[in-house]
């Protein structure tokens, strides 16, 4: 997993609520057995028409917005547990998703892949959308060690929450499997003391 510390970049706004993982990556593109290449089909049916032509009114096809932050409406990543959704977003070059609410499984999947789900309040989210709308060049500085979203233009600093363990994993580029494997002894000890086993 790639390490994550401080990123300064622009944002791509998608002010739609309840974006589900079927939109992020439709099921018919889940046939690959590796983790690579899903970015090509990110938001496939919003991005291309049935003839495979890019839809000019979709934000990912517009040259107006660029950056490694995806700014999305409330309840992002609901629906299917497919981790391919996090892979696709990452593969397309994003490192952060900002929303006012993330579906649980998506949040976990993102964190396990070095993609930061950054949660802000509804009010802040609406303000960020307005800023980017007014000036597509708006810069965002995401500072993970400080748990801070900094807006250089206005000097505003917005703090965000993240589980301390997950934060350390992101900064160091570790994932849970490394930690769990180190717990082998505790796991076998637990198994031998269980009152009821299946």
């Amino acid at each position, binding site marked *: 997993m790639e390490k994550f510390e401080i990123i300064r970049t622009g944002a791509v706004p998608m*002010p*739609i*609520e*309840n974006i*589900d993982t*079927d*939109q992020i990556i*439709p*099921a*018919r593109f*889940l*046939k*690959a*057995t*590796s*983790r690579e290449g899903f970015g090509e089909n990110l938001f496939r*049916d919003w991005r291309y028409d*049935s003839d495979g032509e890019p839809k000019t009114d979709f934000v990912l096809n517009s040259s107006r917005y660029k950056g490694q932050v995806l700014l999305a*409406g*409330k*309840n992002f990543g*609901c*629906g*299917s*547990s*497919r*981790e*391919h959704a*996090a892979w696709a977003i990452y593969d397309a070059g994003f490192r952060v998703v900002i929303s006012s*609410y993330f*579906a*649980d*499984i998506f949040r*976990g*999947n993102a964190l*396990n*892949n070095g993609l930061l789900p950054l949660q802000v309040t*509804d009010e802040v989210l*609406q303000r960020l959308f307005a800023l980017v709308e007014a000036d597509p060049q708006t810069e965002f500085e995401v500072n993970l060690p400080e748990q801070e979203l900094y807006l250089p233009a206005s000097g505003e600093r917005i703090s965000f929450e993240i*589980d*301390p*363990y997950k934060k350390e994993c992101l900064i160091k580029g570790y*994932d*849970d*499997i490394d*930690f*769990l*494997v180190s*717990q*082998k002894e*505790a*796991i076998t000890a*637990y*198994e031998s003391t*269980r*009152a*009821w086993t*299946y």
Partner: protein
Amino acid sequence: MKKTLFDKIWDAHVVRSIPGGLDVFYIDRHLIHEVTSPQAFDELEARNLPLYNPAQIVATADHNVPTRNQHLPIQDQLSRFQVDKLTSNCEKYGVELFGLGHPNQGIVHVIGPELGITQPGMTIVCGDSHTSTHGAFGAIAFGIGTSQVAQVMATQCLLLSRPRKMRITVEGELRKGVTAKDLILYVIAKLGTGGATGYFVEYAGSAIRSLSMEGRMTVCNMSIEMGARGGMIAPDENTYTYLEGRPHAPQGERWEQALAYWNTLYTEEGAEFDAELHFEAADIAPMITYGTNPGMGIAINDTIPASVPASEAASFDKSLQYMGFARGESLLGKEVNYVFIGSCTNSRIEDLRQVAEYVKGKRKAGHVEAIIVPGSKQVELQAREEGLDKLLADAGFELREPGCSACLAMNEDKIPAGAYCVSTSNRNFEGRQGPGSRTLLASPLVAAITAVEGKIVDITQYLN
């Protein structure tokens, strides 16, 4: 302190708690399928890790399999490759596989309970969000991502924070024609798609208790549709009757010991939840969805909301535009092109019986394509043994072979762009059943009546 059902099972599975609030959490059963497991097997390989215990894993091929001619090689090359990969991985690591052609093959959440693999008090995971289905047996069951699939393969554990707890109580008797599916669609419509995010739900109350195991599975299945990590129902006589004698259920003395333990699995009087919701069964009518998330549901003879909060207006109208509906409109009389009866929500024998009973001696409307995809080979076999296949065929319904099919349209079972499909599955997202498809979620009974009438009707007029 008084304990909830959830806490009892959670506490029994904590290997250790680490500072900061995360638990090393033990998993009893791990179910895998062809779509979310290949990258996990690769990860084991890349890290040179052995599989912790193959005996705790069961595999099936379901998401990406054809529902016709399963005895022939899979035509689609990528799909065939994915299914073959599952087979070779299972052989290599010694995992029991119910692959295509196996008499136990089927949708992962249908075969788990059917084979008695799913039991009260267990922790069960699968790389699929509808793993919540297994909670109907009083288990903690939830969907995980592929990285977590690899973690469970390598260590039989996950690193988790304890979710908050919600209890949803439904009291009273369901009205005629109102099923478990209507009950859960009603609850989701009340809470919205994010209404239970961060929570694990226990369903309780007399209306829940009186549901069959099939009905309870339907309810728990859709917990994820309101954002919940999972849903569960305390085990009782219904649960034990269902499980006894199933191939993987404990036998003899082990059964008695199991029962003694399972009988301790209930929420104690006075135990606290972070949120409590109460509903009356009598308020629930046959439901249908009109939008592109499962929270957009109404009673079938009701109208689409005319107004929504300003902040939701843009998403709401985008959704209605996709569906070709308007605010304030009634769905009654809308023509439907497809009826899909299947998915881990409603493809069990009880569902097929209900459909067959209604369509017996009737005929589907000419313009409707009606497809029934059983949840498993066992369900298919039982339907044939009971003669349901004849009744269904006479009514113009096509009974296919088991798989996820048009629930997610990964295989060739797709609803064409613009077409309306009344579906017994669990998701009506844009394009879920094929690019441009328009899904209306409903119960098997509503689906059956719609197929015969060819349009959305007030089904209460059709029940005698």
